[in-house]
């Protein structure tokens, strides 16, 4: 699968308009300098050779050198990974905490005013464009109220993380909330929950201990898919909040036709996707021992 992805990126880049050497030259390009740059970037070699070289290096753990930054791609990516991971995890945390809470509250009394309000808000969260929400949050909480910093990484301070995480998490909060509610309502109707109720256990215990645990399985799936999504879907949030993450790097690299960086970053995303799915499977085992049999 990873092989297929790299080949796809490579081919896409080969047919894309624009030449990395020319893009690196600014408006006024000297023919001799352009030629030298193309040689430096090894762009004068046949495509098949370029790709084979890349794969050969990859086998040795070398992702090549960025055209634009003239540094190893591993270094370029590693430098931004912490910021990206922090943002993705914080956004996931926002989504899980707010989403599960809202979903559970809504499920306690289906059809109530609270239920309608929460689910309405969830749909709004899903439907709101990320960049729009980001600008609004910044305007209110940073500029007008002055509670939080407007933008930036702030050397990793927690205050700087809040608004980007809320913005990025909003979309998934809605999804998680709806999934939790639906899943809970489903589980509640099942026999063992009815049994627990019949035994006279308080509703809090029934919902919290028996139902929620089982209802979380589909929720975990959504979170797993969402995590990979968050790593990818971040460039808009990163732009609005001047967050030094992978999303912006990737957009800039595509714009500069910085092929080694694009290939490297896509590979990282694909890996995260694979690992994310693996973690989801592991989480199933943890939450629900019965899937062990199903899986085996």
């Amino acid at each position, binding site marked *: 699968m990873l092989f297929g992805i790299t080949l796809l990126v490579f081919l896409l880049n080969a047919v894309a*308009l624009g030449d990395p050497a020319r893009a690196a030259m600014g408006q006024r390009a000297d023919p001799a300098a352009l030629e030298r740059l193309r040689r430096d970037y090894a762009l004068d070699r046949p495509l098949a050779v370029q790709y084979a070289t890349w794969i050969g290096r990859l086998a040795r753990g070398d992702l090549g050198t960025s055209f634009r930054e003239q540094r190893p791609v591993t270094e370029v990516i590693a430098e931004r990974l912490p910021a990206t991971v922090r943002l993705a995890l914080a956004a996931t945390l926002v989504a899980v905490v707010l989403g599960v809470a809202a979903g559970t509250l809504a499920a306690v009394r289906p059809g109530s005013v609270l239920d309608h309000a929460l689910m309405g808000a969830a749909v709004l969260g899903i439907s709101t464009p990320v960049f729009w929400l980001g600008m609004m949050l910044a305007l209110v909480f940073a500029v007008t109220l002055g509670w939080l910093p407007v933008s930036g990484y702030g050397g990793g301070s927690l205050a700087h993380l809040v608004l980007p995480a809320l913005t990025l998490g909003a979309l998934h909060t809605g999804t998680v909330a709806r999934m939790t509610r639906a899943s809970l309502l489903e589980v509640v109707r099942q026999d063992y929950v009815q049994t627990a109720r019949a035994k006279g256990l308080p509703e809090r215990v029934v919902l919290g201990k028996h139902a929620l645990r089982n209802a979380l399985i589909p929720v975990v799936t959504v979170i797993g898919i969402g995590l990979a999504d968050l790593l990818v879907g971040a460039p808009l949030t990163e*732009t609005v909040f001047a967050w030094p993450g992978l999303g912006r790097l990737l957009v800039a690299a595509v714009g500069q036709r910085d092929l080694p960086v694009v290939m490297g970053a896509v590979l990282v995303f694909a890996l995260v996707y694979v690992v994310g799915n693996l973690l989801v499977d592991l989480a199933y085992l943890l939450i629900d021992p019965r899937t062990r049999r199903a899986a085996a």
Partner: protein
Amino acid sequence: MRKAAVLTLAVVLVALAGATAPAQTPRAGGTLRAVFGSDPPTLDPAHATDTTSSAVIRQVFDGLLELDETLTPVPALARSVAVSPDGRVYTFALRPGVRFHTGRELRAADVKYSFERAARGKRPWVFEKISGAREFIKGAAGEIAGLRVVDGLRVELRLDRPFAPFLHLMAYDAAAIVPREEVEARGPGFASHPVGTGAFRFVSWRRDDQVVLERFPGHFRGPAHLERIVFRIIPAEITRFNEYRAGQLDLTDIPTGQCRSVQSDAQLRGEAAVWPTLGTHGLRFNVEKPPFNDARLRRALAHALDPTLIVERLLEGCVHPARGILPPALPGYSPAIRRLPLDRERARRLLAEAGHPGGRGLGPIPFNFNTNDLNQRIAEVLQAQLREIGIALELRRLDWAAHIKVVDDGSAVFFRQGWIADYPDPENFLTVLFHSRNIGAAGNTSRYRNPAVDRLLDEGDAMATGAARFARYHQAEQAIVDDAAWISLYHYSSRALVKRHVKGLERSALSSAPEFLAPLRKVWLDR
């Protein structure tokens, strides 16, 4: 034959320093919080091609010369420069005792090394006027023959033929002096950790986040006022504005659509500044390809377009309407140039004469521009205005890499092009953009070929600065405008917000906020 002219620029510097003595005594210390709209691609003077990189490079490195606030070259690392009577030999005497950030003393050999290194970088045109440079750039020679180290503190540069703006090239940041041993030790890493002789030395750079510089106490002019400079990198203009309003930035640019409101805002009024810069936004045709190989058709478009809406509405009157190609802030600008006036009747007649009455038989004409909100809005204005004479524009928005490709290779027939002078001389506009020698990627993307214009430009480039030289450029400029090889929309300006406590910041016509290319060693904070 003129008599020997030996120019000692040091005198000029002393005079200027006296003239601009600040009313208040500068206070030392503090951090200047500046901002960029994008990450600098490199901090290596040999590889930079953009103003963001230059804005940092100019603080970390020095050149032989630098530009003062009137854009005149004045001595920097060079103490003086002597020019031979034929205008072909420049001898620079270096200031003694200048030290790099590593503590090593500057030598004449550093100049030769730096220039030869940069000549094989991304701006070789800065050095190509030196004898033997073309051969060296192409790899046919091992050194630049016309670049000679005379002694420990003197270098001699010999040109093939006189070139009036040569001193400007020596003040350009591509010609910054780098220490050989650091460059060689760091390899490509030098671009991420620059070392120069500049008033500020490099501290750190977190990509897409911030670049930090600190005062270099051993600078040859004495320590700068500021303790530190932090350049934040904030891509969204609205975010930069918000940070400025929240008090987290000392200077920034005025965002789109706010130029008027900022100037009437009680708080921001005294902090806003708009000044002309050395740039022009224009439209170009590929004059080799149909339909625009027919000058009547190009003139028809020129007569049909009205930049007033763009200048007055889109840009809120914060830019300058254009007559010709050269911007008013450029030395050598002439107010006598006449543009092809808005005249839709004449436009329709020209269309008919060219065999396309009412735009018939033309089909939708592709208009190429690079992705950018303002470019998009301008394209929509052009589209609406040309519709009135029966011409349909098909807008082709491409990202920069794709745009520059279709423009360079001539496949774009009608496209936007902005041009900002690298140094303040008409040569950098007209010769680069319209001389037939520069057809294609080198600058003449119109593929314009006019022997009369070529001749005027060649003459002007070699003449000594003065009215006679500028007259050559004016003739060439008017010919190009009349030929409608370029339609000017407006001249650029810099729109900045600067906090009141920031003192000594030069508003150079070469810089455009949020990047200030001015030497920040002159800046101090009053608080």
